[in-house]
């Protein structure tokens, strides 16, 4: 008589569908093949995959410095966080072959997390639709989401992450961008599940690891407050404000915990200047796929602080207007922020943008309103292909110069920005059509043209 409850309490493991098995196999297999080929060494030094923060070369340097008893943060070479350093040090001491396995695992787990994000966000979208359907126009039945439509989204997201050549190359290059993607995906999953403790922990870990996810607190706090308050959420409501403050407080508490943990190995907070300080002050101006280096090489020292503030503000500022506009859609806001930070951060790599690309399938229902998709795809492909070519022409042949390479970087950034703005436009337009029907007409019966102002 006590057998049935126990059976129910046992965790249910769903069988993994065939498609997922293929995706996992292919993705991990491609990574393993690339890691063991002779291209791995070349990939490790590619600036498109490895920034001064995430490069494996610098990580090995840091590990060997640690071996000699010197703190890697004393110099200007190592910029990864202490906990990651500790983890990799353990792994390298146990067995050197654990490192490739570690990076494969990181990508595997990130893929699973992205898959779970997909399922959870789709469920959240369906729930939200269910709650708001009474506000929609009767003509917009065709625009509504169905479960069948969203069935394939998690698989698509997994495939988009694991089979993306950018992430495959990034993994084979042993770049810690994979780790950054892991913590950001973790933050997205925890956010959508709505548990304040878990969500704040996850965002704290993400912002500990890569500095820019600090701004994720805002949509996460709004989402959690909305979950708690239901329809009564408003910025003026003291309960909502309390909820927001609690989330923010939780985030900073966890962050403080992590900082205290990082203080312990070396007994000093030097690492803070080397990691956070490095990302925020951007002193390293070797060319990378970001927008900072070209400007700062030509700048007078006099104006450096000013422009640094401008650039960093540009990277984080968009959270505020988006929070105002997208206050009812914090999940979309969060996903847009992932893309925004990938473009405007001080040392981006291809892996950061690839994570945003893998989040796109969940917003696939907006694609039909996107206007620049062809342009964006073309610009993406051009910039990804031309970046190493023009680098080679510039550095090795000397027949190009920095302007060529920076132009490709600009094209890459422009492609991402177009994607973001187009997605935002498509999303907002779809919301408008949901409320006003798919082909709204104005008073005299003329069709209205939609524009994003």
């Amino acid at each position, binding site marked *: 008589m006590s057998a049935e409850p126990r059976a129910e309490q046992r965790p249910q493991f769903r069988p993994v569908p065939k498609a997922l098995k293929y995706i996992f196999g292919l993705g991990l297999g491609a990574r393993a093949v690339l890691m063991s080929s002779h291209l791995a060494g070349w990939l490790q030094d590619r600036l498109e995959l490895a920034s001064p923060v995430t490069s494996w070369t610098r990580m090995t340097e840091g590990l060997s410095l*640690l*071996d000699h*008893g010197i703190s890697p943060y004393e110099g200007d070479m190592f910029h990864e966080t202490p906990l990651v350093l*500790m983890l990799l040090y353990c792994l390298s001491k146990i067995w050197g072959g654990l490192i490739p396995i570690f990076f494969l695992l990181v990508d595997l787990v990130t893929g699973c997390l992205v898959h779970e994000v997909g399922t959870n966000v789709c469920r959240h979208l369906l729930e939200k639709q269910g709650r708001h359907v009474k506000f929609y126009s009767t003509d917009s039945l065709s625009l509504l989401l169905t479960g069948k439509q969203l069935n394939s989204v998690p698989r698509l997201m997994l495939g988009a992450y694991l089979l993306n050549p950018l992430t495959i190359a990034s993994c084979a290059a042993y770049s810690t961008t994979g780790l950054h993607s892991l913590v950001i995906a973790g933050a997205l999953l925890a956010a959508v599940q709505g548990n304040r*403790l*878990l969500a704040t922990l996850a965002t704290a870990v993400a912002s500990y690891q890569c500095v820019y996810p600090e701004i994720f607190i805002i949509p996460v706090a709004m989402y959690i407050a909305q979950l708690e308050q239901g329809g009564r959420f408003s910025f003026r409501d003291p309960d909502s404000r309390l909820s927001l403050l609690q989330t923010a407080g939780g985030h900073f508490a966890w962050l403080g*915990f992590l900082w205290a*943990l990082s203080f*312990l*190995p070396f007994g000093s907070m030097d690492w803070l200047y080397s990691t956070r300080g490095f990302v925020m002050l951007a002193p390293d101006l070797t060319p990378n796929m970001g927008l900072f280096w070209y400007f700062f090489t030509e700048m007078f020292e006099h104006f450096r602080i000013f422009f640094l503030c401008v650039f960093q503000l540009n990277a984080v500022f968009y959270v505020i207007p988006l929070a105002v506009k997208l206050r009812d859609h914090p999940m979309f806001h969060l996903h847009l922020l992932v893309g925004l930070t990938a473009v405007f951060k001080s040392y981006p790599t291809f892996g950061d943008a690839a994570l945003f690309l893998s989040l796109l399938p969940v917003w696939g229902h907006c694609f039909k309103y996107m206007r620049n998709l062809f342009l964006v795809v073309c610009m993406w492909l051009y910039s990804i292909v031309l970046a190493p070519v023009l680098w080679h022409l510039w550095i090795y042949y000397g027949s190009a110069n920095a302007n060529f390479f920076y132009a490709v970087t600009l094209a890459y950034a422009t492609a991402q920005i177009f994607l973001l703005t187009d997605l935002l436009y498509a999303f907002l337009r779809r919301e408008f059509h949901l409320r006003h029907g798919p082909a709204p007409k104005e008073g005299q019966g003329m069709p209205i043209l939609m524009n994003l102002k």
Partner: protein
Amino acid sequence: MAAHSGRNWAGLMFLCLLFVSVAASSNVEDQVGGFFKSGHTNNWAVLVCTSRFWFNYRHIANTLSVYRSVKRLGIPDSQIILMLADDMACNPRNPRPATVFNNANQHINVYGDNVEVDYRGYEVTVENFIRVLTGRLPPSTPRSKRLLTDDRSNVLVYMTGHGGEGFLKFQDAEEISNVELADAFQQMWQKNRYHEILFMIDTCQAVSMYHKFYSPNVIGIGSAQVGEDSLSHHVDPSIGVYIIDRYTYYLLEFLETVTPDSKKTLADLFRVCPKRVCVSTPGVRTDLFTRDPNTVLITDFFGSVRNVEITTETITLKRNDTAQLCSGSSCPGSRRGKRRKKLAYANQFPVEAAYEEEVTKPQWHFPMYFVAALSVFFITVVSAFRI
């Protein structure tokens, strides 16, 4: 009667012989005296071409031709400073690489295996030229780039390029003025760096460059008066540019007739290239020169005639075996009983020593409190989510 005539003849013969011997001895003395009249003991030459670019081929050819003559007449490379602002022999536009000709018939290649260029390309600057003349070079300058003259040196300074009234253009980027040049020569005088200078310049308005000289013992020869252009001689259609200037062409024609024992004087040199062949009027300045140019030999400046003093004393050199053959403790007079350390080559790569002591065990371990804190953290996290 015959005996008297015989005695007369003998006397006459004796007188003749005496006369001849006296004359002959005075000739030798004159010759010997002539050795010491010039007052210099060594010859130096500073040959400067200040133009670059292919269309200034003729300036390089000018300088190299004078270099060739000066070497042929005996000045060694160690006493010639040759400054060429560009490399025509290896210029990609040269249809005959590794050659420079000064004549359309291409009889003589003035650039061969035996040419030692001391200042080449961008090293030919006004600053370097004046430093060479005054001797104020950085300590790291090699001997071949120094003008190591003393107060018994006769210096030939030949310059060619593009000039104007009172200046000479270097490398299309800067210029030297006649005042600077005059001051440089004065510095040389004050530092006793020359005995006599022959300054030759083949540019447009060349004579303006020696107008400001004020140091003694300087002769200036210019190829064109102020307001006149010094013209080039002919073009070589197979090379495509003018390959020699008029003044230098006729100067070379003249110098080819000069041999190391030639008696030609500076007066002959001044008559080289009259207006009817040169189109420009060469100018000469001799007011600072103490000797009469008619008595000055060409080889005083263009050649390197060394005065040799013959002495009849004999000097015996002692054989110095011990100094050459002993070494270390076997030498007489060295400290006995001092054991010398066996010498060995220093390790070329001292880093190897560091590699040899491999890091067998890591010098950094996880601090215990860190491990404890980490485990506390994990337990907190896990328990927080179980709840």
